């Protein structure tokens, strides 16, 4: 069974069809990439899956459960984490707090136990911190641990965002242009980390990406889009040589 299944998704904004009848599946354990020129509707698809946008038609199912009408916060509870194109971190807080916030979906305490900080709340807190440290170790973020996000360089923010998504302990990770703003070296590191995330943590990855090198290195399957519609889906080399894809990028 596919992990994420979307069929015939369409959405339009004020007469502009941003996404037109797009269907795709993400299989467990793979890296699935969406490529396409700017304005092709790639990020819109992520926003549809995150339920920030309401689809005009079509449906989505995650792990066999229909999520077409789920509220946005439910998506994270079900096990889909995401990052954002221009990073959306909690600016005034430290890296540590940012990562701890991601554990919200795993909370077992309620308002009253939190107010009194009962032993259960303390145990949970220690447990969260232990798990956060694991992620910090995995992505080598020790040096940024206590720093406020506001002062971090862009590359580090990108990594913190991925770390934060991992702290949700998701089944599916949506990466929206993870390499944008990174230098070639950092992008290379990123490709190793994506492979690690899939191999070691067993998390499925779907990403929107412009860097064809990165896409070709890590992806198992690629979907190419243009003008809101799907052009082709297949393995990276196949897509890179697909006539429709070449036309979309290079013109006739």
């Amino acid at each position, binding site marked *: 069974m596919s992990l994420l299944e979307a069929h015939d998704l369409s959405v339009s904004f004020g007469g502009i069809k941003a996404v037109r009848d797009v269907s795709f599946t993400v299989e467990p354990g793979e890296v699935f990439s969406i490529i396409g020129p700017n304005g092709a509707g790639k*990020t819109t698809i992520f926003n549809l899956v995150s339920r*920030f946008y309401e689809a005009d038609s079509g449906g989505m199912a995650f792990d066999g459960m229909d999520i077409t009408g789920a509220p946005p916060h439910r998506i994270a509870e079900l096990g889909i984490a995401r990052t*954002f194109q221009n990073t*959306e971190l909690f600016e005034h807080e430290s890296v540590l707090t940012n990562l701890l916030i991601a554990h919200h979906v795993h909370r077992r305490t309620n308002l009253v136990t939190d107010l009194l900080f009962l032993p259960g709340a303390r145990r949970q807190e220690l447990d969260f911190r232990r798990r956060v440290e694991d992620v910090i170790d995995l992505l080598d973020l020790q040096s940024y641990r206590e720093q406020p996000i506001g002062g971090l360089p862009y590359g580090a923010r990108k990594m913190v965002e991925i770390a934060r998504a991992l702290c949700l302990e998701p089944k599916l990770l949506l990466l929206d242009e993870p390499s944008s703003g990174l230098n070639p070296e950092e992008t290379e590191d990123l490709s190793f980390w994506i492979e690690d995330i899939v191999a070691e943590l067993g998390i499925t990855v779907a990403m929107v990406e412009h860097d064809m090198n990165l896409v070709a290195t890590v992806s198992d399957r690629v979907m190419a889009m243009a003008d809101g519609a799907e052009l082709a889906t297949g393995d990276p080399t196949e897509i890179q040589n697909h006539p429709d894809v070449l036309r979309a990028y290079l013109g006739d």
Partner: protein
Amino acid sequence: MPVNESRGFGKPRMIPRVFACGTRRAHTTLEILQLLIIGISQGCVYGLIALGFVLIYKATEMVNFAQGDMMMLGAFIAFSLIEAFDWLFAFVPVLAGLPGASFAFAFLGTLFVMAAFGVVLERAVLRPMIGEPPFAVLMLTIGLGFVLRAVAGAIWGNQPRALDSPFAGGTFDLGGLIVGYENVAIVVGTALLCGVLYLFFRFTRIGVAMQAASQNQLAAFYVGIPVKRVFALVWAISAAIAAAAGILVAPVNLIDPLMGFIGIKAFAAAIVGGFGSLPGAIVGGLLIGIAEPFVALHLPPGLSEVSAFVILLAMLVVRPQGIFPSLQQKKV
């Protein structure tokens, strides 16, 4: 720490004398018209103040909570200018006996003085706040309002004053329908101001530049629009509008340092209209202005004072974007 300024947002002093006979009987078309006229003229005042809010918000993304107090300041300045011109014109034979001469000069003078005040305010207090979160600016202008009130109190005292306006007191009698000159003046004045503003934004170079700056400050800056100067101009215009509102409302409503409190109702009007929409400001102002006298007549006493807020809350629940929506959702 309760500060001795405990008066709320004015007693029902906005409801003019026509209402003194507020008995509850079946009302005629004439009475409805009468209430409508009062409501419209009051609504125009709200609308004008709201216009000032919206102008500043659109162009600079700042919320000027002191707009009502700027109106108060404008009214006081007009009051002093009229006295000054009265004294001055006594020496000028041509103008000495001319009714309304000093009012007319004082009106123009006030607009000018307040526009200058707006520029100074922008330069000294608000420019350092560019880029700060809206909440900080909101708090800042609340503080500014308190300061303006204290300054006005120090200069003019706390006694309510009447503005010597040529519109004060007189009435038309249209077959039983009694219309005060001041009400006509408010409506005509508002219409004129709106017309002038429309032409300004539509056709002048700087007006178009202002629109551009309000859409996207950075982009406007890149295409060579002097954004800072535009901001100063926006503050000047909205201070002048506030002053005009103050002068127009003064005959209906005595001038005192706390008259600016109606600015809060005007704020409600701006939001009901759809914050960021200029026609919305006027429509929202009219809606709230018209509702008040009717509520005063038919519902429990005192409710007319909060009717603006009830309308606001109802609007926010039913249609938070206002009558003319202008905000968009954040993009990620």
